[in-house]
């Protein structure tokens, strides 16, 4: 390293114009390199506010140095250094925001609901598919009760089988379960449901078809179970039992399936854009929705684990479920908030 090069005499005595150019600017380059190196090592606290404020400006200075050097200098070492430095600074300046909380605030304050509205068309399709799935499940089982076991599976069905007495079925809805272990139950439910919805989203990669199949299957199970309860006249009670957490959970699964479908649709029909670009845009939007889905599933698991077991009458269950549905709908489709995470991002950079 040539430490003492920046003295005026050294600049004047340099034989080549491109070397003078380099000596005049080297201090800025070195300063940027120091800041960038610190940030790469994760020592954000060691950087003074002054340096942080200067970072974007220094980045642009060095980037313009690179442009000039490319047109005027043939010093391969300098060019290579500048290119590497600009790239490193670009990583930092255009890297992810440093604060996750800042992002989260923008996300909750409008970014999430905006993303949900942006995939509105896919939500409609996914909703239609879910309704169709439930109807299919109902019709299949009413046509031939044997279907029930194909759909639901023996383990999961337990006592809830076609032909079970009204008393048994009533107990599955209202039996005073022991309240211990509810919290564990909720945590497991969340972990399981979150994994399923991530799956529904990720399967969108295969043109969205598996996402829809997953929706159909899940809702067919629901439809089949509804039919079993309908046979003994417990339709309303069953609906209440589902509604407590179902309005939140089914909404979340709906969004996850729609997000998967959104990606699948943009892979299959990218429109005028290049397919990779279309996919990436859809993927980012869907990822926002999915982050929200995981949050919704936390709420759903809490409702399922606690509220459903503790509130033991149909009317109360409907009240909770209806309130949640209203809340989510209002948040997604009526709440506009700020412009989403972009605004917060700009504030964070400034």
């Amino acid at each position, binding site marked *: *390293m*040539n430490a003492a090069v920046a003295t005026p005499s050294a600049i004047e005595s340099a034989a*080549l*114009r491109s*070397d003078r150019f380099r*000596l005049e600017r*080297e201090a800025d*380059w070195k300063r940027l390199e120091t800041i960038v190196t610190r*940030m*790469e090592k994760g020592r*954000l606290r060691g950087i003074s506010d002054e340096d942080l404020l200067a970072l974007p400006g220094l980045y*642009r200075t060095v*980037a313009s140095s*690179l*442009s000039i050097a490319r047109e*005027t*200098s*043939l*010093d*391969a*070492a300098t*060019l290579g*250094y500048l*290119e*590497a*430095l*600009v*790239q*490193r600074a*670009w*990583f930092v300046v*255009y*890297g*992810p*925001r*440093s604060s*996750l909380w800042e992002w989260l605030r923008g996300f909750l304050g409008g970014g999430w609901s905006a993303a949900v509205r942006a995939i509105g068309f896919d939500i409609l399709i996914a909703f239609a598919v879910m309704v169709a799935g439930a109807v299919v499940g109902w019709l299949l089982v009413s046509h031939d009760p044997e279907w029930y076991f194909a759909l639901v599976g023996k383990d999961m069905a337990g006592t809830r089988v076609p032909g079970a007495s009204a008393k048994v079925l009533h107990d599955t809805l209202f039996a005073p379960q022991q309240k*211990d272990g509810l*919290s*564990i139950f909720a*945590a497991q439910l969340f972990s399981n449901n*979150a994994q399923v919805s*991530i*799956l529904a989203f*990720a399967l969108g*990669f295969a043109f969205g078809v598996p996402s829809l199949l997953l929706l159909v299957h899940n809702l067919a199970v629901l439809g089949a179970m509804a039919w079993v309860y309908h046979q003994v006249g417990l339709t309303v009670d069953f609906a209440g039992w589902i509604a407590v957490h179902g309005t939140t959970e089914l909404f979340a699964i709906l969004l996850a399936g729609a997000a998967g479908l959104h*990606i699948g649709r943009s892979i299959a029909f990218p429109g005028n854009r290049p397919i*990779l*670009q279309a*996919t*990436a*845009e*859809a*993927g*980012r939007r869907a*990822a*926002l929705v*999915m*982050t929200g889905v995981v949050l919704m599933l936390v709420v759903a698991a809490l409702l399922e684990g606690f509220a459903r077991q503790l509130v033991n009458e149909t009317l109360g269950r409907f009240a909770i479920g209806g309130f949640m549905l209203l809340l989510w709908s209002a948040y997604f489709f009526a709440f506009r908030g700020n412009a989403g*995470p972009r605004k917060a991002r700009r504030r964070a950079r400034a």
Partner: protein
Amino acid sequence: MSAVPTRLRRSHKDRMLVTPEGIALPVAVASRGARLGALLLDLLIIVVLIVGSTVALFSIAGGMVSMQDAIRSNSAIGHALQFLLIVWIVIMFLFRNAYFLFFELGPRGATPGKRLMGIRIAARDGGRLSAEMVIARNLLRDIELFLPIVFLLSVGADSGWAWLAATGWFLIFMLFPLFNRDGLRAGDVIAGSWVLERPRQKLEAAMSLERERTDESGAARKTYQFAEEELAVYGEFELQALERVLRENREQSIETVYQTIAGKIGRTDGWNDEKAFLEAYYTQLRARLESGMRMGRRKADKFSG
């Protein structure tokens, strides 16, 4: 950019990326080997974390003997165990889903595994790497990696077809990066991200300055002057080759290069002083080529006019 510098060794990994300022930057796509290494390192770290936290929680719980009964019992110890179990379930979920997210959302854009391998993620379009991208590329990891692995482990080898299907699934996604030139995995396609090598390059002293400083240190040196037609024989490519030789500073290659150049321009006065001769030639050739550049005349190599 009008001219992509010839000095860039055009390997199959080099790409041009245009920053929002409109500057074309040469970047190198991370090799698939480095990415596999990074993934294995990260998985190793995750496994260690999982095992560590499980062991820690169990030791807090005081061993797993009769835990089943204790959980069901309505005592204080039962509640404490319940709480620990919830913590464990949440931790497992986080390790599986949040490990990559947490690290790639940081300013370094790389998990510890990636950092050790000297690679990081970036936006493919040259713009900002956003949180949405990081989330999207890591949600896909679930079907690429964890789902088939969990499936394989749970099914085992006894069900032939399921095993085959899971292996096929796993291979399709694992081999995905082999079938596109940027080494994108499915998550990168969805997110619009890619994985690049982190550049490291120190600023080396300019060759043309070094000579002058050694002059100052006192050694009396012969100066060489080259005539216009002696400099006109070479172009930028040769200049950069010469720079490389001078920087490497190996006796033998300097000797060879001196022979070639002196032979070509027909001079013999640099005998036994090859390095100084070549440095002088380098400086003057660069001065000539650079002044040509300023006039808009570039000479790529010795063959071009």
